[in-house]
């Protein structure tokens, strides 16, 4: 096998060189990200600056708020992750679950028909205005990516100061899921003459709905 041979050759070269021990690098710990006085406010203002729409609402009003957003978007085909529908059954009034089967079965619908995807946020990071998504069996990866509008539901108490805090507190390193994703706004690009344009390949619109405890 060529690749086993290559592996041996590469590792041998590296080992031969690294034995000529370089001085151990000085240890300098990562400077702590400053603790924010008002993390929620910081979080919201960064998200808004990044062109996301942010709505804070009581859980009881969730369905009304989502309905309003959908009306604004003129959306007719809306899909919510099963995880979301299980937690907020009232949303079955305005959103449907994915058709059965795997991506191969509903890929074309997702690309061509679905206008809005509703998913949950696993937690959030105040310092960078970031939502952490943790897709899984009941929330496909593509639902937060393919439809032009993405609605994210976030519980306020899951807001962390920054990425390091979240990964240490939740002990990510012990068991990473197949996919974990940080989202900090709608898809964008500045590839043409440094002019910012939204909706490059992912959602053009990102709506973050923050629910209290």
């Amino acid at each position: 096998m060529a690749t086993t041979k290559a592996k041996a050759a590469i590792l041998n070269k590296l080992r031969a060189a690294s034995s000529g021990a370089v001085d151990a690098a000085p240890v300098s710990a990562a400077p702590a990200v400053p603790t924010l006085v008002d993390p929620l406010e910081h979080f919201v203002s960064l998200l808004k600056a990044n062109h996301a729409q942010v709505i804070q609402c009581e859980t009881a009003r969730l369905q009304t708020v989502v309905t309003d957003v959908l009306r604004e978007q003129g959306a007719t085909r809306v899909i919510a992750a099963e995880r979301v529908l299980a937690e907020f059954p009232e949303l079955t009034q305005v959103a449907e679950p994915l058709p059965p089967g795997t991506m191969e079965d509903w890929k074309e619908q997702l690309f061509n028909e679905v206008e809005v995807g509703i998913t949950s946020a696993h937690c959030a990071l105040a310092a960078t205005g970031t939502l952490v998504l943790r897709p899984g069996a009941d929330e496909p990866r593509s639902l937060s990516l393919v439809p032009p509008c993405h609605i994210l539901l976030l519980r306020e108490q899951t807001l962390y100061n920054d990425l390091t805090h979240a990964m240490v507190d939740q002990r990510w390193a012990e068991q990473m899921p197949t996919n974990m994703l940080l989202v900090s706004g709608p898809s964008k690009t500045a590839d043409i003459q440094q002019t910012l344009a939204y909706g490059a390949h992912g959602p053009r619109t990102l709506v973050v709905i923050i629910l209290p405890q």
Partner: protein
Amino acid sequence: MHSTPTAFKAQAKAALADPVIRQNFRGAMDFLRGKRQGVFPEQAEFKALQACAETIKQQALDDLPQLLELLEQNCTRNGIQVHWAESAQEANEIIDGLIDQHDGTQVVKGKSMATEEIELNDYLGARGKDCIETDMGEYIVQLAGEHPSHIIMPAIHKNAEEIGQLFHEKVAGVDYTTDVDTLINIGRTQLRERFMAADIGITGVNFAVAETGTLCLVENEGNGRMVSTVPSVHIAVSGIEKVIASLQDTPPLLSLLTRSATGQIITTYFNMISGPRGYGEAERDGPKEVHLVLIDNGRTQAYADEQFRKTLSCIRCGACMNHCPVYTRIGGHAYGTVYPGPIGQIISPHLLGLEQTNDLPTASSLCGACEEVCPVNIPIPNLLQRLRRQSNLGREASTGIRGAGSARSGLEALVWKSWRWACCRPWAYGVVTRVVALARPLLGLVKTPWNKGRATPRPAPKTLNQLLKHRATGSNRTGGAHGNH
């Protein structure tokens, strides 16, 4: 219009004479520098973060063989298949083989400098396989039949008018426009079809975490996510130096990367991939297979040398080129290498050998701006000087660097040798300097590379030796006169 590093001087000259290139780069560099400055308001914070990142990368390099094995172990446990390639050729063969194995016909690619480095598109193209670039900048560059001119913003050499014209000519049914939103939407529509139909997706890797077997991708557009989510096979291509020890190393590196590259405190997406679909639970989407191709391609050569090893700390942020007075003026294509600018000048000699690249280390004023902004503190000017020495080494000196001594010129060596000979013999030195002083009127007529853009320095009519002798006798006389008063 394939530029090459061997034609660097001619390419640089042509670029300098092109006002559109000059203007496009000037504008883009000013923009990126301004953005970077805005997110590093305090130098002390930058320095602290830089020291931390330098340590992380330095330690990862010191432990590189162990970390690579750990990465393979953990990736394999997660269901990611790992392949190793010593050369670009081997890497291309592996990728081509994987595509064949799955009867792949439609390949989409996210932005990846590693695949530019191995010239994957050309390799697949020659075998009848289309590989579509999906990053907007890369898509533009591919449509134009060109190569990226910047590692972060590939189409930075083009302005909106040029891109509008390109789309009008190359994309069916598109009218000429310079409206950026319209142009991006054209790209979006074209590429969505491709994402949906693709069976193979290829991306690069920003960080490969050994501890968890995780591949991290940093991006704004979402094409990297598309490519690594929708097709049933995802192939990630990475240089061996991208491995880091632990997940906790990612936050400082990510922060430095996005701030240094585009002046963002974070990019829109940071994608952490630790396995194919349903590895652990019954997922309904995501690739059914994930492959990681680890590439050497000259990196072990840089690794073998304690000083050159630092080159491998690079996180490919592009800040060094944005701040380089040479890059800003000649642009990315003039270098003729995949990686342009300061980082290209120090990495390309290892990838391609010094025979082809020995002009590159000379294209620097050694002003030090690159080192100052480099988030991992790579001593670029020192490395450039070292490469200059390597390329002028005599045949007898043995060194591990491919192409060392290739810039050595017999004439130059002879001149230095004679100079040294004369300097050690005062009588000879005296004769030579006197002859030069006498030949003074003739020297202006000699054509040398020096006087192409500068006035010819003229030797003084009398040598220093003569002047001092003269002064010694003269000052004795005046000294005597003073004494008479």
